[in-house]
């Protein structure tokens, strides 16, 4: 059952070849078998999942179901879930039970999806390896000595190990696409504003975006349909109609122009470059035209990001003060001591570093020179994309500079870790949609190909990815360990 596509599962459920209770039990059994080694969940929810599956079966019986009714999903532990613990990978929120559901969670419930649990993640989504989680590292199912990527490492490992057909994820600088690449799965970061951020714990509010992970672009298209759209509770969500993603999924690629940014290939590992170019040639065979383009400021993405993201994070995480919710230190001697020790004890090292860098770049004397300067360079980077999209429909390149690295390999060198997001960050700075899809293997480890399109053009992104997956089988590969 765990090798079927979402469309096949939906057909089987709605024609009563299987029940949602059977399907959910199947995945729960797989979780029980593989989770002890993978550590991909923070909270498991088997009893509630089976109850939801039962309700889904009743809806199917009553013929009040939708296309996703009865299909299991895992929520990244950054999404608030009413009555179920939401930790965001942090000790700070170890006992936090949100008093409401995030809009994404609410929409998943409305679609009849069955939540299996909450996935492990880097603390407050700050990390590229899942090693900053207070709840321990997640292991990559392709090689248990390696990281799954981050920050949505739990969701990525869950999809790769077929512990769920669907998972939500979030992406501020590559946190969906980079782990998707490391784990050999498909991961979509929608345009900024396409999916509500209400109830999604904030890290860097001008870049945070909710998205999806699954085993194919088609599975993502089906699910994006259910979670995309305007939300009056999120002032940054955009009031634009959601197109029918399935209607354009199979469109011919003839006439589409795909740009290869030369900066993405300069200095790239030659074996990875070959795989990415093989992917581009497949699209050319399908009718697309390939041209070289330039994004002249893209090399500045990492320094821009590491000014803006910490600045926004330092403001967003000021709310964790030990007063209204979250960790509180014991026996505070005064209010300042309460704040300082609660935060020192509740946050991990990477989160503290980012808060401090952010506080620094926002402090008197640095604000103009660093924060505002970074915002100006951000516009230059965004302008490069807008210029490129005058002549192309999509951009294609690698998702990450390498494959999954060893656990601990980059843990003590933050800048080296930050550079693993070098190809994904620019998309967030510009607010564009991006997808990572499997494009082959290098020394037995998955390599991801990244596509980016114009704002709110997820339809083209999914169309190109789907056509590619129609003629390739990389997305069907499964780690032997979990077969």
């Amino acid at each position, binding site marked *: 059952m765990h090798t079927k596509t979402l469309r096949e599962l939906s057909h089987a459920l709605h024609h009563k070849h299987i029940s949602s209770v059977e399907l959910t039990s199947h995945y729960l059994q797989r979780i029980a078998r593989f989770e002890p080694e993978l550590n991909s969940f923070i909270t498991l929810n088997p009893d509630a999942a089976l109850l939801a599956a039962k309700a889904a079966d009743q809806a199917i019986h009553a013929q009040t179901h939708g296309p996703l009714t009865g299909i299991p999903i895992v929520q990244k532990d950054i999404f608030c879930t009413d009555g179920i613990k939401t930790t965001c990978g942090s000790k700070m929120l170890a006992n936090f039970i949100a008093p409401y559901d995030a809009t994404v969670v609410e929409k998943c419930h409305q679609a009849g999806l069955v939540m299996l649990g909450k996935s492990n993640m880097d603390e407050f989504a700050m990390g590229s390896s899942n090693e900053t989680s207070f709840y321990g590292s997640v292991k990559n199912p392709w090689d248990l000595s390696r990281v799954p990527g981050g920050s949505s490492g739990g969701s990525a490992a869950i999809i790769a190990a077929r512990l769920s057909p669907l998972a939500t994820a979030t992406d501020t600088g590559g946190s969906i696409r980079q782990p998707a690449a490391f784990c050999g799965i498909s991961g979509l970061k929608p345009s900024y504003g396409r999916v509500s951020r209400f109830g999604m714990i904030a890290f860097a509010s001008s870049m945070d975006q909710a998205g999806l992970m699954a085993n194919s672009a088609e599975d993502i298209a089906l699910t994006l349909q259910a979670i995309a759209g305007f939300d009056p509770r999120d002032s940054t969500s955009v009031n634009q109609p959601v197109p029918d993603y399935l209607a354009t999924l199979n469109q011919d690629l003839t006439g589409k122009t795909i740009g290869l940014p030369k900066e993405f290939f300069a200095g790239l590992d030659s074996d990875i470059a070959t795989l990415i170019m093989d992917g581009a040639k497949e699209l050319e065979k399908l009718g697309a035209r390939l041209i070289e383009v330039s994004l002249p400021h893209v090399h500045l993405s990492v320094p821009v990001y590491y000014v803006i993201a910490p600045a926004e994070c330092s403001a967003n995480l000021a709310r964790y003060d030990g007063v*209204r919710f*979250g960790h509180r230190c014991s026996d505070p001697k005064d209010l300042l001591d309460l704040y*300082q020790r609660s*935060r020192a004890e509740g946050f991990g090292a990477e989160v503290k570093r980012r808060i401090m860098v952010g506080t620094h770049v926002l402090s008197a004397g640095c604000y103009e020179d*660093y924060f505002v300067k970074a915002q100006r*360079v951000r516009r230059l980077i*965004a302008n490069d994309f807008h210029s490129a999209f005058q002549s192309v429909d999509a951009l294609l390149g690698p998702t990450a500079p390498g494959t999954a690295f060893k656990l601990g390999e980059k843990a003590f060198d933050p*800048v080296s870790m930050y550079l693993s997001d070098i190809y994904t960050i620019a998309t967030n700075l510009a607010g564009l949609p991006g997808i990572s899809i499997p494009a082959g293997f290098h020394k037995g480890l998955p390599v991801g190909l990244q596509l980016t399109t114009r704002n709110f053009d997820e339809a083209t992104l999914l169309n190109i990815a789907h056509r590619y997956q129609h003629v390739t089988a990389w997305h069907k590969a499964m780690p032997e360990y979990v077969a």
Partner: protein
Amino acid sequence: MSFNIDKIAHLSRIAVTAEEQLQLEPKLMTIVAMIDQLQSVDTTNIEPMVNPLTDYLCLRADQGTETNNREKYQAIAPLVASGLYIVPKVID
């Protein structure tokens, strides 16, 4: 750019021990050196970009939409009494 850890730790309201400070300093300096690359970029006449979607920001009617959920919200607080959040004494 210099980095005064004591000052920044205070502004961040994060207690940092002397031992942590020793570990933090080289890492923060590496990050600062990396972001210093931006200083050499010519940004004359370039408007800062604060958000990818400034044109679309949606305003809502100035009407209350939330109901009173004090008990539910305070159920997750570290310390409450009589509907109040309790903190150490602030005024002598």
